């Protein structure tokens, strides 16, 4: 009899896991994906929507079209997991029993956790990105502040990329001379990785983007139009863009499967839950202190899928475990980009920003739908 494999979440990680298990298990697994919307969203595109470089409609497709035909899709909201009974409860439908469970529920953004932060702009949701572009289109002069209001957050390079793309956008409108861009960084440099910061900081200076270090946004005063840091500094703004605090999904918190922020504790190599058998977590969902990004979800998904395939076939676990691999692009504006690659054992390297990396990112964004969800890229 086939094992029931249930995957919560139809994002990049959940979709790859589902397709790979269905393909590789030779009928030993019956795979079900549970997703609350049934719509697969390509989140890296939000950054481009926020500066008018991407059409929002190009960033979503029905999840059913990305899954193999032998994967069952349930469009419903998982409300609670009972790991003792191997059961997932739904908002509307009947409970699902599982033999193996993958938590790929991702993260949610919580601007409401920042005192005064609800009115700030963000590019971490489709709605936020569309609203931000609308505000930018009517922006004529003044100071635009970009800050980080919580750690961890998705796509660590995104605030720096947004600063560069915003600079391009304001120049294209001929209003850069009337505007200031201030980038507030949580660290004493532009970006977590020192080597990448060394590449990026001279370009920030060249583009007249003011960098303030050790500024972790704590609160916003919408009347005075100021933002104050955890470290005790205050900066004024005319338009405020925040990276919102993130946390795990409600179902994780309500099921007692995560920590106090809803991140699921897993072994950093096998991605197995540290407390419950037959449960894996991948992507943003985990508590591993590594980038919350599509690339991590992608690499982790292939590892979790191979482990689950071995489990349902009754074979030895595969030798290959997750080695901490991360690969990101970082747009540096004016048609150039760099990349960042590393794993648990190898420190990050970034090439000099060049046009070819920008085009590689653009190509990846366009071809994503035909390669990544199906597990066609390693």
């Amino acid at each position, binding site marked *: 009899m086939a094992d029931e494999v249930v995957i919560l979440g139809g994002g990049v990680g959940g979709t790859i896991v589902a397709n790979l298990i269905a393909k590789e298990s030779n009928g030993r697994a019956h795979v079900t994906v549970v997703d609350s919307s049934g719509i697969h969203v390509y989140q890296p595109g939000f950054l481009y929507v926020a500066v008018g470089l991407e059409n929002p409609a190009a960033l979503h497709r029905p999840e059913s079209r990305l899954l193999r035909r032998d994967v069952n899709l349930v469009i419903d909201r998982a409300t609670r997991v009972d790991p003792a009974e191997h059961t997932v409860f739904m908002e509307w439908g009947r409970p699902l029993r599982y033999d193996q469970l993958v938590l790929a529920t991702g993260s949610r953004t919580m601007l409401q956790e920042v005192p005064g932060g609800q009115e700030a702009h963000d590019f971490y949701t489709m709605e936020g990105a569309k609203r931000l572009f609308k505000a930018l289109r009517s922006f004529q002069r003044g100071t635009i502040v970009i800050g980080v209001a919580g750690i*961890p957050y998705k796509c660590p390079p995104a605030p720096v990329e947004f600063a560069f793309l915003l600079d391009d956008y304001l120049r294209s409108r001929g209003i850069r001379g009337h505007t200031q861009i201030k980038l507030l960084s*949580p*660290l004493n440099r532009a970006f977590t990785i020192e080597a990448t910061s060394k590449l990026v900081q001279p370009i920030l200076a060249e583009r007249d983007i003011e960098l303030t270090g050790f500024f*972790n946004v704590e609160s916003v005063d919408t009347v005075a139009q100021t933002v104050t840091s955890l*470290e005790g500094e205050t900066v004024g703004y005319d338009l405020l863009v925040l990276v919102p605090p993130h946390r795990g999904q409600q179902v994780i918190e309500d099921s007692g499967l995560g920590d106090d*922020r809803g991140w699921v504790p897993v072994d950093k190599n096998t991605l197995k839950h540290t407390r419950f058998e037959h449960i894996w977590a991948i992507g943003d969902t985990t508590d591993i202190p*590594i980038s919350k990004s599509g690339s991590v979800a992608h690499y982790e998904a292939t590892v979790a899928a191979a482990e689950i395939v071995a489990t349902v076939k009754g074979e030895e676990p595969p030798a290959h475990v997750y080695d901490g691999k991360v690969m990101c692009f970082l747009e540096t504006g004016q048609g150039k980009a760099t990349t960042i690659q590393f794993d648990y054992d190898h420190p990050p390297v970034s090439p000099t920003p060049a046009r070819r990396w920008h085009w590689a990112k653009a190509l990846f964004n366009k071809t994503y739908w035909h390669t990544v969800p199906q597990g066609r890229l390693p």
Partner: protein
Amino acid sequence: MIGTHIDKAIDARGMACPGPLMTLIGAIRQGQVGQVFEVLSSDEGSKTDIPAWVAKARHELVEVVQDAGYAHFVVRKAR
């Protein structure tokens, strides 16, 4: 040997991104005043970054203990 009671330990060895300091900042933000956090980091930069941020944010660096290939940073949330 760490001689202080640790409320939350973070193993950030081998993690370049978001990195040990970012993870510590995240934990301190969520923590209560008086709680003690321990970060394990194999990143050389942590030896300057973590003390610099702790001083700027006016928390307390309780101790730094070097181990084989990594260091323990023990930080108390002071305010």
